[in-house]
Structures are given as structure tokens and as C-alpha cells.
């Protein structure tokens, strides 16, 4: 039996309903919101506080200081992990059977994925506001203009969307929280194989070789350029972020097909 024809209004209604429920769960459950805020906080505190002496390494030349240097990494990391945690929520919805009810009830199933992505973005916004406040309290220097900062947070939003699509694709294929490591580990890997602690020029050996071809390196360098008011690799970084978002949207679409076939 065919359902009602998909309409833009149906898509929007489904997306808002899914996002609303996901955000309600996130905001009302301390075991979800706690780690989501605590992880970036402790990464930031540990890196910016514990490694501040690294800015004294010969050749380290970042005008806005080490706190700002690390803020960009933690911001992009929280964006990516916001997406991964949303993937966990999708997997949990499949385990509890709730996602199957979504599939049955939604007039436009693409709206389900869009709803999760919207929830991931709002979760990301909450975390970024918190993280930025912590960084400012810690004395972070921002040399970039308002436009630069808009570029930085837009980049974070694109990373968040790409990571959500990646995790959603895995979650809808595996349909169990056991797929968690598969969502998490590659994300962790690609983030940490970039110039996390020092600029790319100061890396050497295998890590330099890997970081040089890692797309996250361009995102980090662009982000650090934005915060220091000296934008670099802007077009490249946005092209990479958009390409990742498009690629993982296709991946998530395949995941949705897989979940639909499984019934």
C-alpha cells in the first residue's frame, strides 16, 4: 500500500518532530547532556591549560596564543562528536523500536534524518556557546573580526552536519548501539591525525606525512586563521567541508534505504 505523497510540509513536520524529541531527551537527561558538555570542556582545559608551555617551542608562531590555538581544535572536535553522539541516539532509537515507529509514521522519511541533523546542530550550538564562554573566561584572545568568527562557527556547523550524516549512516545500517565504536573511532582517528598540538610545520616524520594529506588539517588551519584574524585556506576548507557533507549525506541516504529494507 502506498502512503501519502511526500510534501515539503510533511518533510518539515517530520524533521521538527524528530528534532524536538531528540532535543527533549538530550536536555532532560543528565547522562546525555553531562558528557556532551564535559568532554569538550576537559579537552579544552587539558590542552589549553596543560600544554600552554608548548607555545614556547622554537618555531611556534601563533599570534593569538595557545588558548585560541587549542580552542579551534576543541570546537571542531565537539562539532564532530556532537554528530557522533546523535548517531548514538539514532542507534538507541532502533534498539528500542522507536525508529521503526518513525519509519511507519513519517510521510517523508528523509525528514527523519533531517530531524536528527537539526537536533545535532542545536546540540552543537549549546556546546559551542558553553565552550566559547569557558574559553573567554580562561582569557582566550580573539583577533579575528565578526565575519571571521562567523566563518569559524559556520565551518564547525558543516563539520557537525558531516559527522551527523556519517554516524547516521552507520547507525541506520547497524541499528544497534554496538555500532558505536564504528561511528566514534574513525572520527577520533581523523581528528587526532591532524596538527592538534602544534602547527603542521612543526610536525615531522610519519605524523607530518599523514597530517599533510588529512582533510581535517585544512579545516583546523582555516579555523585557526579565522580566530587570529588572518584567514587562510578559506575556499579549500569550505570546499572540503561541503564535499564531506555531501558524501556523508549520500552515505546516510544509503543507511536509510538499508533501514527501510530491514523493515
Amino acid at each position, binding site marked *: 500500500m502506498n502512503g501519502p505523497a511526500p510534501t515539503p510540509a510533511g518533510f518539515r513536520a517530520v524533521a521538527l518532530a524528530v528534532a524536538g524529541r531528540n532535543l527533549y531527551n538530550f536536555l532532560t537527561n543528565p547522562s546525555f547532556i553531562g558528557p556532551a558538555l564535559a568532554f569538550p570542556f576537559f579537552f579544552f582545559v587539558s590542552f589549553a*591549560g596543560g600544554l600552554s608551555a608548548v607555545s614556547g617551542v622554537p618555531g611556534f608562531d601563533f599570534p593569538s596564543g595557545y588558548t585560541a590555538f587549542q580552542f579551534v581544535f576543541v570546537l571542531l572536535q565537539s562539532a564532530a562528536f556532537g554528530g557522533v553522539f546523535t548517531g548514538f541516539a539514532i542507534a538507541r532509537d532502533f534498539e528500542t523500536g522507536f525508529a521503526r515507529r518513525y519509519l511507519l509514521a513519517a510521510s517523508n522519511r528523509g525528514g527523519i534524518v533531517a530531524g536528527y541533523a537539526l537536533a545535532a546542530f542545536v546540540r552543537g550550538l549549546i556546546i559551542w556557546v558553553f565552550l566559547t564562554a569557558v574559553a573567554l573566561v580562561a582569557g582566550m584572545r580573539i583577533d579575528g573580526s565578526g565575519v571571521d568568527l562567523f566563518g569559524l562557527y559556520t565551518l564547525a556547523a558543516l563539520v557537525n552536519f558531516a559527522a551527523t550524516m556519517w554516524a547516521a549512516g552507520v547507525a541506520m545500517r547497524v541499528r544497534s548501539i554496538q555500532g558505536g565504536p564504528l561511528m566514534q573511532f574513525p572520527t577520533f582517528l581523523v581528528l587526532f591525525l591532524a596538527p592538534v598540538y602544534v602547527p603542521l610545520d612543526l610536525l615531522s616524520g610519519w605524523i607530518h606525512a599523514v597530517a599533510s594529506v588529512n582533510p581535517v588539517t585544512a579545516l583546523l588551519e582555516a579555523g585557526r586563521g579565522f580566530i587570529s584574524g588572518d584567514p587562510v585556506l578559506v575556499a579549500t576548507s569550505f570546499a572540503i567541508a561541503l564535499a564531506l557533507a555531501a558524501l556523508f549525506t549520500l552515505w546516510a541516504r544509503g543507511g536509510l534505504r538499508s533501514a527501510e529494507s530491514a523493515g
Partner: protein
Amino acid sequence: MSGSLRIQVGQLARRSVLRTLRQPAQIVPALVFPLFLLAVNTGGLKDATNLPGFPTDSYLTFALAVPFMQGALFSVMNSGTDLARDIETGFLNRLALTPLRGAALLSGLLAGSVLLGLIQAAVYLAVGLIAGAELAAGPAGVLVIVALSVTITVAFGSVGLFAALRFGSGEAVQGLFPVFFVFLFLSSMALPLDLLTTDWFHDVAAANPVSYLLAAFRSLLIEGWEPGPLALGFGIALAIFAIGMTAASAALKTRLVRT
């Protein structure tokens, strides 16, 4: 130890060891994750050895202490999750019907942590030395590093047992992982205490026992035989073990009364 207690501990220890060996999902992440971070941090922070006062010219040697601590954190999860599963599935209730003593239960359950500690120590040390880390204490230092690793792993394992008995849920035990990671993050994990230039971070790290556990490993790797840091490291590990076991024993009594 009386004969009957020995048999009880032996049976539970055998079960704990087999259970650990049969769950690669427990062993593999505890080996792979710390070694991955070791590789990344060593590559990324190599130039930190150029900072005045850095104790060695090999960041790998300095950082090799960290996997031992991360491995111990996995022991909290593994021992706690196993016991929580026993509680959730009703296995502990069945044990409560037997004349099993609490001490035997707790000691036996930690056998898996001992095994995990041994495997972790052997792998971390072998990989580190093959990759070029130095071991200033020489071959005898290997034995002390293994002993320290096992002691710390068992100490943290006892905390996992307490958490499982107190909360009775695997999810709650898993939720402790970030809490313990915070202790690692707010320590002298990445740089020596003297080089932590942010005042408040230095103060927190100086008050954090994990800094001294790391210092004990580093003393063997970088300095050679330094009795002070070693005694402090073993002392802190034994204190954590004593606190963990005391808390676990109390929680076990409450848990058995409840059942």
C-alpha cells in the same frame, strides 16, 4: 588462607580470567587506544623536548608512562562491567545462596584485572621499546614496571567493583569512564609538573595522585632507580586499592542484604 577460601578464590579467579580472555572487546581497546594516542602524542609533541628543563630528549620515553594509566582506567570499566552484568543477570543472587565469602568474591573477580594488567604492561613496554623508547632502569626495571602496572590496574579494578556493587548497573559503570579520564587529563600527562606554566593547572596536577603514578613509571624509564617516586607510586596505588576494596566490601554487604 584456609583451604575452602582458597578454593572459592580459585574458582572465581578462573572464571574471571576466562571471561577476560573470551572477550577480545575488553582486551583490544585497552591495548589499541592507548598505543594510538601514544603514537599521535609522540608525533605531535616531539618538539616539547626542546623546552628548557624537559627531562629527556625522547618524548616517546616520557609519554610511554601514559598508556599504563589509560590501561588501568580500562580496568575500572572491565571489572566493573563484568560484575554489574553478574548483578543484572542474577548471578550474584545465586552466589549469595552459597557459602561464598565476600573476600573470595572480590579477590576472585580481580584476577581478570591482574591478567589484563600483565598483558597491557607487556604490550605497552614491548611496543615502546621497539619504537625506540629508553629504559634507564635496565632489564630489572621491566619487572618493576610490570609490577607497578599490575598494582595500579588492580587498584583501579577494585574501584570498578565498588561502582558495580554500589550502582548495580553496567551503564552506570560505563558512565564513570569520563570521570576517571578527567583525572588523567588534569595531571602531568603531557608535560612534567615543572613545565606546567598555567598556575591553576599546575596546582590541580600537583594535587592529582595520577601525576605521581605517572612519575613512578617515568622515574624507571628516564632516571633509572629513584626510590622516592617509586615508593610514592606504589604507595598511592596500594592506597587506592585499600580504599576501593574497603568500599567494595561495604557495598557488597549492602547488596547482599538487598538481595
